């Protein structure tokens, strides 16, 4: 009885706070584009747009999910929010762009060469980001492993700033990043739509990037499912399945789960904790690298600060799904992708981050363990 009373009391405070949040939402809602009648009218006049935003949301969500996996795996194993992770992803975008540029893929007219160039860029980006992420752990987190929780967190924020500035310098080097008319490192760079170019050159699908352009359903509804949508979704989902099988089936994957659940017990059984943690950072970084190439090809921009928004969205996705939970990060990624897509489309793109933050606050308030939160029944 005592316990239920306590919970009830706590709920009142939550209710009051959510009322406050709702008040703020209704206050700033119209500014943020939350104009319900206009949105309804918009959907009614152009229902196919809804499906289009769905497709964009799923594609972007897949990228967010891949980045979120890096947050959630690292948190699961050393209970640290690796704030530099979003910036590792940004480095992935630039590594891909530079690799594509240096190998001449960007200007190539040969479809085979473009395909090979893209595969090579994927490999380079994965390797660079994996090594970068593991180096960050070695440099900035390992010696703080037994320090108070705040120390590695601040160290992580510091690493984030350092990498952002590396990105800023990188973006300003015209021999590394094609300028396409922009100047300096601070501006957004264009990441050419290599997949679109590839489709046109190869004559695949009649040279049309829209996969089902000729079907009546797609013409009638004015829908587009581009090659890049499909590629991002297929690649992301295969990475997720691969990761899931790796963690469930392989010896190293099991050692990771064991370390996440009880580090001392893992040590006692002969698991080399340092190696397991390094492997976790390698895998998380590699995924961010793959996400970097996918995002570059999908959204066609490269910017030194893009890791911040991606990091925020992915971190929220990881928390939404239940931080430390791999399937949760995947689910959360898709949900945040959809939220961001609908906010960009129907509300106001400038306020998308605010909505994502609102979701973060609401989860932390009402369900801190996330949608698929782990139930830790350790002590019997």
């Amino acid at each position, binding site marked *: 009885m005592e316990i239920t009373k306590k919970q009830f009391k706590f709920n009142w405070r939550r209710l009051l706070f959510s009322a406050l949040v709702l008040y703020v939402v209704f206050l700033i809602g119209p500014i943020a584009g939350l104009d319900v009648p206009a949105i309804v009218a918009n959907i009614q006049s152009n229902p196919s747009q809804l499906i289009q935003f769905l497709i964009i949301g799923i594609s972007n969500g897949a990228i967010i999910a891949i980045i979120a996996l890096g947050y959630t795996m690292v948190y699961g194993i050393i209970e640290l929010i690796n704030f530099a992770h979003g910036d590792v992803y940004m480095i992935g975008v630039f590594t891909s762009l530079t690799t594509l540029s240096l190998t001449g893929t960007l200007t190539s007219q040969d479809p085979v060469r473009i395909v090979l160039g893209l595969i090579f860029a994927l490999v380079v980006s994965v390797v660079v980001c994996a090594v970068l992420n593991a180096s960050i752990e070695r440099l900035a987190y390992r010696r703080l492993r037994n320090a108070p929780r705040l120390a590695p967190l601040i160290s992580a924020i510091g690493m984030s700033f350092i990498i952002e500035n590396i990105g800023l310098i990188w973006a300003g080097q015209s021999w590394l990043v094609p300028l396409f008319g922009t100047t300096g490192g601070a501006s957004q760079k264009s990441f050419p739509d290599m997949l679109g170019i590839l489709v046109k050159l190869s004559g695949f699908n009649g040279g049309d990037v829209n996969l089902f352009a000729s079907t009546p359903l797609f013409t009638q509804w004015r829908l587009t499912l581009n090659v890049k949508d499909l590629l991002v979704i297929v690649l992301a989902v295969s990475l997720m399945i691969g990761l899931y099988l790796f963690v469930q089936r392989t010896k190293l994957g099991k050692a990771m789960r*064991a370390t996440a659940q009880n580090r001392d017990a893992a040590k*006692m*059984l*002969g*698991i*080399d904790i340092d190696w397991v943690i390094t492997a976790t950072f390698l895998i998380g970084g590699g995924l961010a690298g793959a996400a970097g190439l996918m995002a570059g090809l999908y959204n066609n921009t490269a910017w030194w600060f893009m890791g911040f928004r991606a990091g925020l969205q992915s971190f929220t996705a990881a928390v939404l799904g239940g931080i430390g939970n791999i399937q949760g990060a995947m689910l959360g990624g898709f949900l945040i992708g959809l939220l961001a897509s609908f906010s960009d489309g129907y509300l106001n793109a400038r306020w998308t981050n605010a909505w994502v933050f609102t979701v973060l606050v609401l989860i932390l308030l009402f369900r801190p363990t996330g949608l698929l939160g782990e139930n830790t029944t350790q002590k019997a």
Partner: protein
Amino acid sequence: MLELKDVHTYYGNIHALKGISITVKDGEIVTLIGSNGAGKSTTLRTIQGLNRPRSGTVTLDGVSLEKMEAHKIAEFGVAQSPEGRMIFPRMTVMENLEMGAYVRKDLTSYKDDLEHVFSLFPRLKERINQKGGTLSGGEQQMLAMGRAMMAKPKILLLDEPSMGLAPLLVELIFDIIKKLNEEGTTILLVEQNALMALSIAHRGYVLQTGEIVLADDAKKLMKNEDVQKTYLGVE
């Protein structure tokens, strides 16, 4: 043979072990008894490399362990069923046992060893696909012991295997410990239940606030007046 010589271990500034010397010969059950906070678990953690001795030596079969990394110590042949069981709550019983065999390079007898664990603990076989965290306390204890056995260690460290268990289960666990030893496993057993521990052990050490105050054959310790008064509850 496991040998600790004049081991001093600290937690920060707290002097937890004040010069402990213990030997466990091959094929023995040696028990370490003492009250809460005497340093029993710290002794096991020091052997395992989870806490480092500030001075003194720990050797197993002549190889010194005190500077070896914890995972190397496990690989060398030290396995532990730790205090609080420390099973992996979100892994299945089967996966927990698999993790026990993590250090083994030779897995030829893996299936037989698994069958052996299941023959000692049939309850685990019934719950093979259940998550570790959903097991009862007794079952978790069995799992922790089974997991340690899967490593086929040179020496098995058991930390309070009777803690929190019903009397009937305590007897079952101690029967199994005896059986394991008869099959050739060397065991260092830490217990608060001194009566049970001394009844199956060959020799015993009494630990008091980080120091060994008595060391003798288990039979003689059971008859020792101080031991009877303090640990066996005999007036």
